[in-house]
């Protein structure tokens, strides 16, 4: 049974990657789970310098979701390369760094630092964090800025470049193409959805920053839809992310055309989720008579679209009416 996939020129031993901001720098889980069960880890977002992050409270639970405004608190890329990276190299998993910046130049500079650091497999470019006043979503909400950031990072590094796109746009395909044109090797789709939760007793936002980013199962259908749209719009691979908590959820993204997926909020319930999801994936492949996870990628049979179908139409399950 093959579970390995290739994305942006890097080989992942399986398609499950820990999403940025939900897995720290990886080292926090050393000894607690076997990091080798992960296809990869995306670090917490890193700027050039350390950051204090957003005011408290920073997280609040919403229906099937988590609304957060952490504000990219972090140790900065230099401390990461100096103190954290050496502790991660011994683990058999791909390490991706989530690159942040207040300016185009800062993104490029962080990428340059990563370029010279051994042990980093690829860079995920954070142009979609909704919880910072500069950078973040400002770059991900304007296709010209998306192009500028990705092109600058592209020029600054030999590492694969994977922009993480924002769902807080009308048409994600415009941004997917802008990133591809600028030299991106793959895309991560999607970051959190901009949300607002209000305490009606105090009439204050429930988060200190005000608005926040929504994650968790609540956003999964939106994420699957946008990852699917992006995957159809570009020739580079898409990594699907948003509300995955089971193999079933991961498979939705793979069927929709993603080559790999990221698990985020579900890490908080069970950081050992990878082992369980992998076992479920193998079970799924066996049930469907497949020997390679890549055979599932992009197999969505979408209504009204012509497809080179070799078999009779599958019997459709009618959801919700059973």
């Amino acid at each position, binding site marked *: 049974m093959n579970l390995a996939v290739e994305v942006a020129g890097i080989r992942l031993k399986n398609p499950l990657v820990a999403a940025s*901001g*939900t*897995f*720290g*720098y990886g080292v*926090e*889980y050393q*000894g*607690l*789970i076997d990091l080798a069960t992960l296809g990869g880890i995306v670090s*917490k977002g890193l700027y050039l310098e350390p950051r*204090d*992050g*957003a*005011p*408290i*409270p*920073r*997280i*609040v*639970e919403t*229906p*099937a*979701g*988590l609304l*957060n405004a*952490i*504000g990219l*608190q972090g140790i900065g890329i230099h401390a990461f390369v100096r103190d954290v990276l050496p502790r991660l190299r011994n683990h058999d998993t791909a390490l991706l760094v989530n690159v942040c910046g207040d300016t185009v130049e800062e993104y490029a500079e962080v990428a340059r630092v990563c370029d010279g650091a051994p042990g980093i497999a690829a860079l995920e470019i954070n142009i979609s964090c909704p919880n910072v006043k500069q950078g973040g979503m400002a770059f991900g909400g304007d296709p010209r800025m998306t192009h500028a950031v990705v092109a600058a990072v592209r020029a600054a590094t030999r590492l694969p470049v994977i922009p993480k796109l924002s769902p807080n746009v009308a048409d994600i395909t415009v941004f997917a193409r802008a990133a591809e044109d600028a030299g991106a090797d793959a895309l991560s789709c999607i970051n959190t959805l901009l949300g607002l939760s209000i305490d009606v007793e105090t009439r*204050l936002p429930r988060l*200190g920053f005000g608005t926040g980013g929504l994650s*968790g*199962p*609540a956003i999964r259908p939106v994420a699957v839809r946008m990852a699917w749209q992006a995957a159809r719009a570009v020739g580079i691979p898409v990594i699907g992310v948003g509300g995955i*908590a*089971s193999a079933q959820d991961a498979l939705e993204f793979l069927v929709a055309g993603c080559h790999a997926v990221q698990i985020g*909020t579900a*890490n*908080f*319930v*069970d*950081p*050992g989720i990878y082992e369980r999801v992998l076992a479920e994936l193998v079970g799924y492949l066996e049930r469907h008579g497949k020997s390679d996870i890549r055979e599932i990628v992009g197999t969505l049979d979408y209504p009204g679209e012509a497809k080179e179908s070799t078999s009779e139409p599958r019997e459709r399950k009618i959801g919700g009416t059973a």
Partner: protein
Amino acid sequence: MPANRTSSLVGREGLGGPYFLLTFLHPETAREARPGQFVMIKAGVSAEPPLPRPFSILEASPERETFALFVKTIGPGSTALCSLPLGGVAQCLGPLGRPFTRPPDGTGAVLVGGGYGIAPFSFLGAELSRHGGAVRLFYGGRARADLPLLARLRQRLDVVPATEDGSVGAFGRVTAPLEAHLDEAKGPQRLYACGPEAMMHAVARIAAARQLEAEVSLDPWMGCGVGTCLGCVVRVQGQDDTRWKYRCACTEGPVFDAASVVWPGDTESRARHSAGGEA
């Protein structure tokens, strides 16, 4: 070393109204837990609620490989946990966090628990008593029904209850009998508080006014329990710090030196703190 594993419910006792005592099988927590530490736990694997909850460890039994939680059903997380059938499974990560510290020999321990904040003090009181120290526990709540552990705690500790309606113990807030006790106490005392934020803040003020050491166990929303999400940070200013810093309640707490905590209202309003650096 904490362990992340499924954990079955092996005991459930209703304590009246919304209060339950739940016992889970979890060898690592049973063996290694210290008073003041917590577990991150969630019943089942459903999408609701999406986050696990932190609970202080009430008791740990290395022999039985179990730990117990005192839970009040106040939302979907606690309700789902209390609805687990015997043998039902929760995902549990623990033991986590910085425990309470023991006072030096000869220093009395004064424990102040409010509402379900009483949870860590059965464990702490038992340990301090075992080491031969003087322990007094103040147990406050709205009414008698909110002090469901009173009889149990009295079997092994010197407990002073207080209720806001006077239905048991002293009438009013728990801080009044606490201050009366401190007025008369001989020798140095160290305070320990866990409960509503206003109560812990009041205990911190009392300790500061009397130049007593105090530890508080803070209870913000938590995501991960291990310092990765940075969602549970609290404002803390150590003696050597020139300004407050955000500290993870999960890994650098939940127990903090009360004098180091920057309480709401201690500084300007929350809205004006757009970043830590402005303080």
